[in-house]
């Protein structure tokens, strides 16, 4: 409704000067103006439809999540993928940067999202030092997303150290899954 009123006003703004400057060209000009306008509407329709589909897909990607003994409820999205690190490292490898670029797209498309970046470590090394390492990993991811253009206020950081492994195993296969940043949605 609003959109058609706006369109009408735009059309009038275009048409009125045409009338005043060259009255007899009215029909020609009208015809000349009309086709692109219809085309844009179609484009916008497509875009709107794509956005709606994306929004739907995003909604479907969400799952509510609570952590035992930790207050509050968060959402996880399959569109926000974990990034992984080497042992005792916090620098972002190429894979991690690619994933963060996708994360940026999600955040750009859904501007209401506020997310928390969780820094995690494998079980090797001291629990205490791993808390520092998890903080540094999450801070690396935050810095990168901020550089891509996400407002810092939309990104909070928490380190779980080695306290919340994704895989409880005690081998490299498990450890490589545990040295990660995980992304959860605090509000949307």
């Amino acid at each position, binding site marked *: 409704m609003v959109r058609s009123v706006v369109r009408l006003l735009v059309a009038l703004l275009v048409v009125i000067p045409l009338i005043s400057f060259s009255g007899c060209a009215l029909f020609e000009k009208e015809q000349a103006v009309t086709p692109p306008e219809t085309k844009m509407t179609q484009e916008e329709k497509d875009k709107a439809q794509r956005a709606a589909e994306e929004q739907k897909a995003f909604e479907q990607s969400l799952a509510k999540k609570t*952590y*035992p*003994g*930790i*207050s*509050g409820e968060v959402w996880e999205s399959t569109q926000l993928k974990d990034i992984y690190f080497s042992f*005792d490292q916090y620098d972002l490898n190429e894979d991690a940067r690619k994933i963060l670029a996708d994360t940026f797209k999600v955040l750009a498309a859904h501007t209401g999202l506020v997310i*928390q970046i969780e820094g995690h470590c494998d079980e*090797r*090394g*001291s*629990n*205490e*030092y791993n*808390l*520092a*390492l998890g*903080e*540094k990993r999450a*801070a*690396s991811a*935050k*810095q990168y997303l901020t550089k891509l253009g996400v407002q810092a206020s939309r990104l*909070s*950081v*928490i*380190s*779980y150290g080695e*306290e*919340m492994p994704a895989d409880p195993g005690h081998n490299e296969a498990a450890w490589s899954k545990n040295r990660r940043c995980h992304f959860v949605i605090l509000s949307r």
Partner: protein
Amino acid sequence: MRWMRNTVLFFLVVSGAILVYPHKGGGIIYIDINSPQIRRFYLAFPAIKDLGNTPQGIKEEVEKTLVQDLTISDLFYLMERVKLPQQEAYVTEENIDFVSWKNSGTEFLLSVGIKGERNAVSLEFRLFDAIQGVYVAGKRYHGSLAEIRVILGKLADEVVQQLTGERGIFQTKIAFVTDRTGNKEIAVMDVNSRSETMVTKNGSINISPDWHPDGRSLLYTSYQRRNPDLYQVFISTRNSILLSAVPGPNATPAWSPDGKRIALMMRGENNTEIYLLNEQGKEPVMLTRSWDSKASPTWSPDGKQIAFVSDRSGTPQIYIFDLTTRKLRRLTYEGGYNCSPAWSPKGDRIAFARQEEGRFHLYTIRPDGTDVRRLTKEGSNENPSWAPNGRHLAFTSKQGGNYDIYIMTADGGGPWKVTDTAANETEPTWSPWLQ
């Protein structure tokens, strides 16, 4: 004369500990625990004699605990019972045959008697020097059955005190983290693990316990509010209060020796820094400022220096910050991963864990960086914590599938396994003197 003294003393004893005889050792220190190589003595500890009406099972419990405590004290070789002149005995100054004990190889003889009185129990010990043929010390204790563990701690400490001139460790406690409930909670146990209490029960992730120097409360970090916040829990009431909840870690706390400040790790700028808080957990002051990660502060006993872990060299290493000069120096150079520093209460050594071939081993080093010594041989060992005597250490060790708490002495005694559950017991922290 002798029987009179004995009788008088018998009636004097009401409760608590009273010397049975004035000790003739006259303050002789038999064992100098500060010497680098302690000479361990041959101790005869014949089976305890039931002097009447001891409730069933108590004698065995007492004996088991005392054997464990005497072993962990690491001052003796406990002699095999079969080699003793009497395998079960109640030895007194009247009936002792010093020669037979001496001939069996005994250097010291510990004789314990027990007697039940309704719901109470009387326990007494006598310690003899078999070589010199003298009575060293003795005491009688009286208390309810529920107090038996307290009495045994006192008894074991008295024996150690008589021989070394220093306080024993059996009236102290060890706080630790356990995952037996499926999450991580803080618990407190006796040194020999026979009695323990959960001090948190919030279902969250609770880590890094640290004793207040008065021994009445613990600091710890908990994730209850979706941030690693700092809490204080009082042992007697198990009541926790929130001390510091600044966004980011309020973690790896260490109370200063005077109890007036808390060193801990908090958020820096894309890293973690060492901060100081006041005793209420407020007014954070940043001690360090650089790009690297920092964790695990530990105070020198004079409160003038703080050792902590930093990765500024590219790997985790231990550094010492001098609070007076504000200067930082590196302590460890060998090894690619050194962590968990613990400054000895005597000040002379710092214990830490070093990663070697995928495992961790405990080491000690002098605060000037010299005299590095490896302590552990087996398994993977982390989180050393000193007993207040500066000789014993508690630590966590993985020798099979899970982590348990062990005790050893810095001069190579042990290790002795203290906890033995299917769960993981980690981050032990030894209390100060509690009595």
